[in-house]
């Protein structure tokens, strides 16, 4: 079917998407790389000029940058561990025959549809507030001192909120994968006397492995750029205790107008994301061939 004519038609049909995405990717990125080599402050232009890699050197000398990278990775890894382990357990529970499964699924998936600012504000004020939050009520009920989450454990608080948002996603995808597991295989394993644990290790886990990979990769993309949750809860503080790379870039660019430093942070964020993307592409690409 592929004549010269249909081929050029195909090219014509793809052109808008390809051109748009290309421009969207390249133009701002080139600007960012260029800015990252400048000293550039719109409020104080006296010292503006080309400084080569001085902005990148700040990653060694300025503790904020180092803290931001560390916090970024802490958020990604902690949330991944919580959601993947929790998701596997939850998916296995929901895969059991239970009454009202439809409603249970709806309840579990709901947090995923809550927009980040709402999730963050609800947790900040109604759940984790040191005086009026539900956690404080529970602590007082047991005679304990309520925890000042955002003052003393800001990063943990952010991680909890983000994990709450992503646990449903992991659960839903792992459950979907679990439900495609062949019932007969399970039965055969059971008849052969395989216990629960060995069934889990040798049958369930390998079956879910691709879904787990996909969950990890996709979540990582989004977790690398957590922003709204920090903005409305801790605002990055106290100090830099809960500042991640996206938040630091935002602070430098739009609050302090240190465009060069912000851009260097942006470039580092791109590099981080690319390392992840490299693995993500391979995993998703493999699936395309099937």
């Amino acid at each position, binding site marked *: 079917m592929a004549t010269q004519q249909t081929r050029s038609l195909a090219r014509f049909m793809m052109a808008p998407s390809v051109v748009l995405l290309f421009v969207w990717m390249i133009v701002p990125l080139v600007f960012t790389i260029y800015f990252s080599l400048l000293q550039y402050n719109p409020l104080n232009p006296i010292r503006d000029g080309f400084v080569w890699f001085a902005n990148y050197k700040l990653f060694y000398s300025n503790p904020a940058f180092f803290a931001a990278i560390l916090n970024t990775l802490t958020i990604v890894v902690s949330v991944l561990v919580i959601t993947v382990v929790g998701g596997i357990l939850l998916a296995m529970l929901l895969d059991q025959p239970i009454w009202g499964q439809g409603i249970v699924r709806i309840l579990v998936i709901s947090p995923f549809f809550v927009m980040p600012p709402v999730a963050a504000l609800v947790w900040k004020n*109604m759940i984790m507030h040191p005086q009026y939050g539900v956690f404080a009520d529970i602590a007082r009920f047991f005679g304990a001192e309520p925890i000042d989450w955002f003052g003393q454990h800001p990063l943990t608080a952010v991680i909890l909120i983000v994990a709450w948002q992503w646990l449903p996603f992991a659960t839903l995808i792992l459950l*979907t994968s679990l439900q495609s597991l062949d019932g007969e295989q399970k039965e055969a394993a059971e008849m052969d006397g395989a216990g629960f644990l060995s069934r889990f290790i040798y049958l369930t886990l390998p079956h879910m492995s691709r879904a787990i990979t996909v969950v990890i990769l996709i979540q990582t993309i989004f977790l690398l750029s957590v*922003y709204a949750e920090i903005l409305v809860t801790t605002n990055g503080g106290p100090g830099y205790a809960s500042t991640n790379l996206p938040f630091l870039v935002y602070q430098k660019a739009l609050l302090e107008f240190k465009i060069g430093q912000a851009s260097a942070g942006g470039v580092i964020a791109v590099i981080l994301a690319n390392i992840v993307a490299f693995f993500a592409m391979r995993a998703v690409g493999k699936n395309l061939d099937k």
Partner: protein
Amino acid sequence: MARAVTTQHKTIATAAAWIVALLIFFPILYTIITSFKSEQEAIQGFNLIPSGTTESYAEVQAQSGYFKFFLNSVILSVGSTLLAILIAVPAAWSMAFSPTKRTKDILMWMLSTKMMPAVAVLFPIYLIFRDSGLLDSRIGLTVMLMLINLPIVVWMLYTYFREIPGEILEAARMDGASLWNEIIYVLTPMAVPGIASTMLLNIILAWNEAFWTIRLTTTNAAPLTAFISSFSSPQGLFWAKLSAASTLAIAPILIMGWFSQKQLVRGLTFGAVK
């Protein structure tokens, strides 16, 4: 599954599942409950039974004009989705029905644009928007959200279109259908469900997008994400109002989301898990 399930097993599993589900849902539930409390009730400690007043809802609308933000959210999410569909359908179509050697590479590359962190291009985009007067404009933000979701839209449409058997087109052609008839009577009915699911998921994603919608708007084009973020200022404890605003902001999308669970899995895993 032919396995006999004992009632006892089912009872325990049911109890455990419901407890966990309710715990996970609790923050949302409590928000809805609190929205029906008065401001005083809201800070009087844990209480699951509200007095049932709706004064917070009235106040949210009266004080901050909730409806304007709601309208912006609808315009931005639906507008950007329609625009993305318009641009993506031809691309996905040609990739699904006349794939070339490079089709896979192009798809991969499109996906890779999705992985670029938004912060990396924050300032250039901010400058471009400012200099072209697009800051705080619905048009600018619609285009922005369209670009962000375009890769996902192309991908989802592609995976749906790929499942339409090519032979059916040939059969129609053999029966003498013109290209136009082929599109109207054969292809469209088969493509509509896929397009609908794609739209649903993308409206949800656009509705909840909380970086550009907050950073590139101030008042005119500000959607619900920006509206809610403005509640983060520490002065005063207006939890009933906050809860009412939050409930209003998430309710439409929560309900849509419940209907789109299947598409969600498929869309967000780029067809890798179905």
